[in-house]
């Protein structure tokens, strides 16, 4: 099982890897000594992966500091160094283990269009596959037909579904949903929140309120708050991460749309900023296209194996 996940992850990243290998991998292949200009090229490739200026600057500093000792050993040594440095930047405490709390409440948050609803559908499938019952709560009462979209996912995955009226107060919908989950004894509640730009103070306050409301209905809820990031996002993801963390705490990241050519290097920048782990990776639109994150494969994709 674990192996097939890893294969899936690698396969999904292959496109990312192919393109990056042309950038970094070729640079770092073979034993020809490195030239100073190579460092600039590496820097550009990392920037092109959306790792962001601070993370790249940090990595480059390490490479430059150690460059003399690997200069003669050639490129393979340099790749090893870069790999090590990126893994270090991605290092993070392991996610808190799931406790016996029932229902286990998970919030999905993020800006508009990153793939929150689709991710919930995929998470629901994983819950069902693990033999747990799940309730999907459509707390996105703003976007037209958001609840309908979630309902389709509920039907596809055999999860229960709760919604309010369009335009209803999301906290009210959440309260009802959590009460329903308690009385029906669901194992997991997945809460789909409306996409919101992190710059909208009132919407961020609404999110903070939803966290409080959840804690009132279910002790310690939300047990997880997953920030959904789109692999195509640029530097703005950092600002997003900061604001969402401020509004209600973020316990983990989901990186979506990694099946394109976007490298998702922004995840490195965000992990570095928030110190929370990447939990899942989205590799397509089908329900099974969500796999656990694997740092090693991810870094391989960034710098070549």
């Amino acid at each position, binding site marked *: 099982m674990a192996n097939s996940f890893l294969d899936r992850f690698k396969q999904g990243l292959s*496109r990312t890897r192919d393109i990056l290998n042309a950038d970094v991998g070729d640079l770092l292949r073979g034993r020809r000594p490195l030239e100073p200009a190579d460092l600039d090229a590496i820097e*550009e490739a990392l*920037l*092109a*992966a*959306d790792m*962001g*200026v601070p993370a790249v600057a940090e990595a480059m500093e390490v490479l430059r500091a150690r460059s003399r000792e690997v200069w003669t050993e050639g490129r393979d040594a340099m790749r090893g160094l870069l790999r090590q440095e990126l893994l270090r930047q991605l290092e993070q405490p392991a996610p808190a283990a799931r406790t016996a709390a029932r229902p286990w409440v998970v919030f999905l948050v993020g*800006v*508009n*269009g*990153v*793939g929150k609803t*689709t991710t919930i559908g995929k998470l629901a499938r994983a819950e069902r596959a693990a033999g747990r019952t799940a309730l999907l709560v459509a707390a996105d009462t*703003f*976007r*037209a*037909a*958001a609840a*309908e*979209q979630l*309902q*389709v*996912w509920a039907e596809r995955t055999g999860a229960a579904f709760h919604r309010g009226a*369009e335009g209803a107060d999301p906290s009210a919908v959440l309260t009802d949903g959590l009460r329903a989950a308690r009385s029906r004894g669901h194992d997991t509640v997945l809460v789909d929140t409306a996409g919101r*730009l*992190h*710059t*909208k*103070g009132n919407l961020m306050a609404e999110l903070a309120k939803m966290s409080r409301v959840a804690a009132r209905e279910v002790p310690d809820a939300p047990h997880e708050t997953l920030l959904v990031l*789109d*692999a*195509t*996002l*640029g*530097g*703005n*993801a950092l*600002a*997003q991460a900061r604001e969402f963390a401020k509004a209600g705490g973020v316990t983990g990241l989901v990186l979506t*749309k990694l*099946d*394109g*050519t*976007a*490298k998702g290097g*922004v995840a490195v920048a965000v992990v570095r900023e928030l110190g929370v782990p990447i939990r899942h990776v989205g590799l397509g*639109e089908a329900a099974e296209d969500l796999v656990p994150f694997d740092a090693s494969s991810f870094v391989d994709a960034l710098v070549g194996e």
Partner: protein
Amino acid sequence: MFDALSDRLQGVFRSLRGRGALTPEDVDQALREIRLALLEADVHFKVVKQFLERVRVRAVGQDVLKSLTPDQAVLRVVRDEMVALFGGGDAARLQGSSRLPAVVLMTGLQGSGKTTSTAKLARWLVQGGHHPLLVSTDVYRPAAREQLRTLGQQNNLQVHHPESLTQPRAILESALTEARSVGHDFLLVDTAGRLHIDDELMAELEELKRASQPTEVLYVADAMTGQDAVKSAEEFHKRVGTTGIVLTKLDGDARGGAALSAASVTGCPIKFAGVGERVDELEPFQADRMVGRILGMGDVLGLIEKAELIVDREKAEEQVRKLRRGEFTLEDYRDQLGQVRKMGPLDSVLSMIPGLGNAAKDVDTEQGERDLRRALAIIDSMTPLERREPSVLNGSRRKRIAKGSGTHVEDVNRVLKQFVQARKLMKQFGGGGANKMMKRLMGGRMAQFR
């Protein structure tokens, strides 16, 4: 919008300012800073390279080094080149067609905002006297067609929704037939989000294009996208011949460099900008104004336009006349506050004023709005006599006003003090039309929140 980029560039030029002539090293220093700023703003690194080369050639040329105000000269070069990068001047129009309906294909990646933009464009067309028909050919994402239909119902837009059809091409053809028979002049086609490397879906898009012969193929781009924006924009352009770009989610704080890059590599103008979630929050994109904002030159034109839209010119002139006679009352002050409020969120107004882009960020907007509402409530709680003759406001009257407006006496005092300051300020400046009045007003308001 693009705030951080303009901060950095302002920083660069502040350090250059006031040193007389520039040396080539100075130019290099500035270019390095600009490079970093552009990279941080998500401008594609290849675009950055080309851009800097063009700037360097012109900056090191005689016009900058010999200029008496070299920083202004560099700024002008950067500005001109950036406007060129955005794809030139104003392009906010949709190509019509003599053969009705003119078809507009909305394309882009998943989650870029196609459906919302489709509804916004339709509304924009309706306001221009057109009769658009909308249709969604997104048969993949659950409830995608439902979303467009709901948006149509909420906003009085005609949406074609043939529920029994499940093939994008068949849906499109049915919509074309419907549009022709009813006589719609535009057909807006919302397509499914797709990855530019998904060959099958890209082929479907090509087929939709062949079947509908669109006058416009718009690529909907998310302002928050990173370096990959260039690749996808290029691929869409190659496969379906993009004619323009719609930039979405510009109401956030994304620096939008990716959008700049996408426009630059495809050579397509950015036609519209989405600046909010509501259907009326779509603006024609204006490259020169946007660049002005990036560079901290301010969007004076936009501010004046906004002010003119809101300010009742006659009323403003009446206020000026009163002022001259020393009759500026709390009632006039209330009108002014109301006008400022109508101009929109404080930070967006402030960021349009040259040199205040940074100040806009420091202002606590929500606090500002709250103060404004409170001031209005306080003035509303006064009797007409009190508004005309603030001098009658003794302690017990102030207590009553505080109670009536749900505030404290200190708040009442503060508003009165601000009123006296505003009156003094206006007397100093004297005269002037509505625009001048607005500028003074903004100055007064800044002082309150600094």
